[in-house]
């Protein structure tokens, strides 16, 4: 079957239930899935943040200091580090008044990828192209 593309659409804000955080941890698992697949088979998630899902992904989070848990920022950086494609909806950032500067990158960790801030139409295209769409 070769590669199966999935669109992971995060629409719930971070730090409520676990769902929006699980989007990132499940996406990260794409690195190890080959253990369970035939040679040449892969699963490639695109991680897209839309609507309220853009809340809680900015940099400078103190979740570990305050609540003793890994921050969403840290998970997001790990996603970049393992070369996942990450998209954040531009219209939603604008609507909430969040600037692109507030988003983290993982350059200091050696990541080559950065977050792509894109119009919703680009995210809709990812959903069209994907075999499966998962809302988190």
């Amino acid at each position, binding site marked *: 079957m070769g590669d*199966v593309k999935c669109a992971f659409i995060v629409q719930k804000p971070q730090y409520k239930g*676990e769902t929006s955080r699980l989007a990132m941890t499940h996406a990260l698992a794409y690195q190890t*899935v080959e253990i369970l697949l035939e040679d040449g088979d892969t699963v490639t998630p695109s991680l897209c943040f839309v609507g309220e899902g853009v809340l809680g992904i900015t940099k400078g989070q103190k979740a570990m200091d305050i609540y003793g848990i890994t921050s969403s920022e840290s998970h997001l950086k790990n996603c970049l580090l393992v070369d996942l494609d990450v998209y954040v909806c531009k219209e939603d950032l604008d609507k909430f008044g969040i600037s692109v500067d507030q988003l983290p990158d993982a350059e200091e960790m050696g990541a080559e990828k950065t977050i792509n801030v894109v119009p919703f139409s680009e995210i809709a295209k990812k959903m069209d192209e994907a075999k499966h769409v998962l809302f988190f």
Partner: protein
Amino acid sequence: MGAITMGVYPGLVGSASYDFAIKFAGAAAKKGHKVSMWFSGNATGSVKAHQKHLKDYSTGEKYLTELLAAGVEVCTCEACTVARGVQKTESIEKIQWNAMHWYLARIHSADRVLLIGGE
């Protein structure tokens, strides 16, 4: 017949979306489809054996056991489960324990994927 992979995330005892997942999986299996269920987040609490089935609680062990008997494959996220204090030895029999890539692998082979993630 097709294959469907269902992710059940914060579905819980007493949660209507968990009930839906169980009933839908049963209906799909009955029609001859291959059904694989992945429990993550709070759904993993539901793999604990020896649940007392009270009429006030919408789901429980007996439905999971029926699904397993009907050939539905159920796998729980090991990390999520032990975080809740439930050990493998305390699990309902025939439920698999694995890591998140199990879910992605079952997504690979599925015709349909339904992630029930709503809180």
